[in-house]
């Protein structure tokens, strides 16, 4: 499955990047292809392009704050979770997707 994701936390120093790393790794284990955009203290990195989003079957928002450029995801199925969930039990997120 092709997945896009956005991570963002209030200070944007640590958890944004930790969650990104975690999602990338667990997605691989589940056999998915994933691209994660981070919205942290360094601004938006690994930005999702229009075609990234168009090709994805689902978008995961692991965020504790509002996603920047949410309108980019209009028409895409979005699953939004608190950032902690992406850190602590990312497996749950992916099993939900598969159902």
């Amino acid at each position, binding site marked *: 499955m092709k997945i896009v994701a956005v991570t963002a936390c209030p*200070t944007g*120093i*640590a958890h944004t*990047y*930790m969650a990104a*790393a975690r999602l990338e790794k667990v997605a691989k284990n589940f056999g998915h292809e994933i691209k994660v955009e981070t919205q942290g*203290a*360094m601004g938006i990195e690994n930005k999702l392009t229009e075609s990234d989003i168009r090709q994805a079957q689902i978008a995961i928002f692991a965020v504790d704050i509002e996603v920047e450029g949410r309108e980019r995801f209009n028409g895409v199925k979005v699953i939004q979770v608190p950032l902690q969930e992406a*850190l602590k039990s990312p497996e749950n997120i992916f099993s939900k997707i598969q159902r």
Partner: protein
Amino acid sequence: MSQTPNSSLQFAFDCPLPNGLHARPASQLSEIARRFASECSLSNLRNNLAANAKSVLGIIAADIRHHDPCILIVDGPDCESALAALQKFVEQTLPHCDVPLASVSQGGSKKALPRSLQKANPVVSWGSQVSRGIGMGKVVILSRMTLPPASDSLRATHPHHELDKIKAAVAGVRHRISDRLKYAGTPVGTDILQADLAMAGDVALMEKLASEVSMGKSAAQAIVETGQFFINLLGNSDNEYVRQRSADIEEICLQLLDEIGGRNPAASIKLSEPCVLVAEAIAPQQLLDLDRRFLKGLVLEHSGTTSHAAILARSLGIPTLAGVRNARLFLTPGQEALVDANRGFAIAGITPGVRRFYEREQGAFRRRKQLWSLQSGKAATTTDGQRIEVAANVLSGDELIPAFENGADGIGLFRTEMIFLSREQAPSEEEQYAIYSEAARRSGNRPAIIRTFDIGGDKKVPYLNLAKEENPFLGWRGVRLYSDHQEFLQQQLQALLRASAEGNIQIMVPMVASVDEILQFKAALAEAQQRLRERGTSFQANIKIGIMVEVPSVAFAVEQLCREVDFFSIGTNDLVQYFFAADRGNPKVSSRFGVRHPAFLRFLDQIVEQIHLSGKWVGMCGEMAGELFNLPLLLGLGLDEISVPAAEIPSFKQAIAKLDSESCVKILDHALACTCVREVDELLASQSLQSPTQPLLSDHLILLDNESHSKEEVIQEMVNTFFICGRTENRQQLEDAIWAREAMGSTGFGYGFAIPHCKTDVITANSICVLRMKSPIEWDAAQGEQVSTVVLLALRESDKVNTHMQVFSVLARKLMNNDFRQYLQTIQTVQQIIQYLSEQLGIPSERGSLSITAPPQLS
């Protein structure tokens, strides 16, 4: 109401007043009772205390609180009318006579304690910091009611005679209060004075005084003991309001003592174990008389932070707080107490939790000092290479060794008047020579600026027979009185000249206001030199002479003065109060017209510039120089030297090394354009000190085998680590920043790891701090998460493009990697961790000059 068989009448009621039956209603009640011949007694059925209802003190001591059941019993010829009058008062007037007492409750201070100290639940009272440091000891209260040790006031004549004296004194005090009542102004002021008036003539007070003199005590002694008796009685009440009344009774007894001329304003006290001394205020002489080995802390109710006692305390390094409200009630004699003059509060009663906090605290200070002592011997230079001397202010020979141990570049101000105070006769030339020559020897090539005696103002010396002045700070003090005391001056100058043969002694003259004063002084110096030549004694012929800049007129005579003297040292304490006509001991005006007022800064800027134009040297030795907060202004002014308390020298040298002089000049320029103290304060607070030389990783920031017991302690430990290695001076704000992030959600992320982080400008450099614990602690109670490795990421907020953010994000990602975490948990040494992290994150590391990997010493 009911009639009892022995014809006394009684009346029962519940106290309707929320604040209890306090002094003001009590004085009204007693006033009514006193109109009648019958005996009136008031009993509190809650605590079974009975009082003479004609005595305000008695009523207050009965501690009648809201809803306490009470009985009034009246017995005597006019008991019926008495009871009717009292009952009418209780039922109709009493419920409405209570003005809300806004100030009775604690002022609701917003100042916060460190989290790990909060956990210990200490009983805290705040004040302002006078002299930094931490001290612990038994509370000793310096009473104002003490008598001279050997005076006539102790010798009792006939009891009748003594009683007459007391009656006259009471009449005198009542007369004065009545006088003041005429001009009281506000209704509350009137009520308070009326309560005082009632208290001064109180039946119980008079009875106690009479019984003391009947036992053979003198009038003065009877007043002291009676005062002590009531202070103890009221002071032991559970009611805050009643306890505060003990201050009123003390005031009245002091006035009674003044009336009979028996008071000793500067009594001494003997300390025999580690003590925290608590006083309303203290005179410099009293402070000097104390055994300093045992004086661990000083808590003053009076709010002046620049009184001479305060300056003295700072110079002696005694942790001191001023302006601690009701300190003598808050702290109980004999109780263990702690003074934290770094944060500005005193703690009553030392619990194990408080003790543990301060043991860790002192461990941090020890390690910081140890680390810094290696660097403080070097000259203080800004990042762009500007040098400034950092010298020490001292008061006695004892302070020379610690001053140079702390890295002093010289002695910037040796105040000699302390040698003259606190003694019966003037010190001899030999005695002075011994002290000055020690200063010369210990200083070596470094300058030792010794100031000739500055007596007068609030510094009195009995053997000089100075007349009492209406306005001593504007009177006969400093250089002005030298013409009256030529021989004292000769002795001091000859002692100084002799010492100059042994080192770099420089002489500084206090309170110079005009050129002719310095001409006269130089004539006296020439005479001293002539006398020494006649005696065949050697001295430094071209000894340097300087003056204190503390009278504003000096600013208008700089050119002339530069022809006569070699150097100047700005004494800001007096200069600022003379400049603004604002008493520095009066917080109402001193806070508004402080040293950071733009007008004063412009004045200083002008003085320094003029002196430099004439090619002379100018330093600063006042309190302004000793406050780290002012440092950018001081560097901006371009001073050649600052002279600070010895203990502060390492902090100053560290801070100077992080500043560049050009930015400081800009900061000063901005400050000069401000309009008030507040604006300058805000300007300085917004300047964040940044050190370009401190790397992200350092030995000092890796803590292994840590023994913290809780999350609070872990964070305290990490904050202290920043403090120890000079990455923050503001531990409270750094701690708050870390906790602010924790409040948004725990930073524990499983695997025994937590990653707290913060953005703040109270750190001097972006930093990664790693702490590994001996045994895991609970990081987040809600999730029951156990943590044993903590990685703190601290980022400077104002750095717009933060180059280190990239590294932080890499680190955050790597923490999601099993191998990386396992490696961090198992590597043995600090060096290995640094090396591993540097490789993994692609950053250079600092090899610290001193490895401090040991956990704090927990004694």
